[in-house]
């Protein structure tokens, strides 16, 4: 199978465009909008329609993936890992629904991961330790956890989905790093479909734990020149870039363009970056997801072909 790493991704976004400026005009003020946008980043967000679920976004991303890989055969999928915090049903998990919708081999391994912004990176680590190749699906509909437009979360999150086909002949996970902060679950959570985020606590977590983890990795691995970070907010992006400025690193960003798509943010970012840039054979890249937990997971990924 001739499979290009650049084509390993498929992505989707919610179908409703949300004009943040317009929302601020209606609810708050333009002055507040101008202050907020400098910290959050996106001027437009993408929300899913009333009847669009995380499963639909995942299927949309799969269509995008298939467009790029017309000869892809589902028999090459040995495991399916579905990452979401917003399953279509309470149970079964989305992996069963997705596998049924695509008529996948009923003997493949199905895994559901309830992870937020670390989900894609966690799934990579899991997939690499499973037998065979894995399809990693991430999809999230956080907009359904925000009943009214609020300043804390409504100007940050987009609904989105992504696909990544992990072919072990093409990609190798060199190392995985994790940390979770005990008893910090109250800083970012959703209960009864109501999303709460203490922005300053999340920011502090990034400023302390995430930055120090990245520092310790980059100090030891001087060959890493490319970092794909979870796209949390513009303030967080700038903070990380500023803190890591002593390293000779490329840190791509698309937060302004599509917002924070939770577990899909890194796949979206990589997909966009790889459209314009090639990654050479044997390049080691660092992927870092952080958020709900509060937790952080990073992997060093080596592109073999």
């Amino acid at each position: 199978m001739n499979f290009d790493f650049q084509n390993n991704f498929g992505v989707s976004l919610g179908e409703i465009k949300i004009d943040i400026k317009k929302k601020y005009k209606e609810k708050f003020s333009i002055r507040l909008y101008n202050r907020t946008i400098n910290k959050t980043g996106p001027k437009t967000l993408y929300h899913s329609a009333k009847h669009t679920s995380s499963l639909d976004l995942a299927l949309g991303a799969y269509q995008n993936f298939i467009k790029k890989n017309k000869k892809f055969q589902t028999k090459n999928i040995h495991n399916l890992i579905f990452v979401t915090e917003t399953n279509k049903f309470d149970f079964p998990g989305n992996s069963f629904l997705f596998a049924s919708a695509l008529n996948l081999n009923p003997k493949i391994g199905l895994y559901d991961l309830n992870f937020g912004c670390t989900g894609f990176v966690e799934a990579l680590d899991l997939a690499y330790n499973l037998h065979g190749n894995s399809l990693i699906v991430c999809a999230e509909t956080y907009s359904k956890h925000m009943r009214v437009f609020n300043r804390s979360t409504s100007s940050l999150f987009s609904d989105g989905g992504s696909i990544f086909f992990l072919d072990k002949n093409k990609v190798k996970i060199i190392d995985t790093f994790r940390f979770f902060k005990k008893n910090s679950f109250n800083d970012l959570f959703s209960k009864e479909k109501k999303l709460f985020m203490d922005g300053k606590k999340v920011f502090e977590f990034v400023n302390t734990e995430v930055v120090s983890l990245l520092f310790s990795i980059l100090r030891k691995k001087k060959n890493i020149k490319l970092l794909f970070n979870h796209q949390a907010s513009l303030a967080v992006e700038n903070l990380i870039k500023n803190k890591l400025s002593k390293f000779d690193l490329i840190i791509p960003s698309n937060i302004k363009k599509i917002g924070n798509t939770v577990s899909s943010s890194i796949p979206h970012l990589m997909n966009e970056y790889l459209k314009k840039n090639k990654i050479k054979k044997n390049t080691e890249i660092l992927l870092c997801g952080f958020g709900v937990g509060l937790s952080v997971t990073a992997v060093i990924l080596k592109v073999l072909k």
Partner: protein
Amino acid sequence: MLDKDNLITIVSKALKIPKKKVNMDLKLGEIEEWDSLGHLEILIKIDKETKGKASRIKNLSDSNTVRKIYQNLKKNKLIK
């Protein structure tokens, strides 16, 4: 090392308000400018001024008055 006056300057710059409007008892939520975004800006500026040392202070983000920020920085020997 920072001093009290530097801290007041930092807060006024972060919140984009005149220095005379800032006093040690000013607190988060008391004025429109000091909301969660303003708080974030204060933390970023303090971190920058202390060359990243402030980020090592656990729960600095919980300090919700200028005085509490000052006390927290003082405890950690980052301000006179």
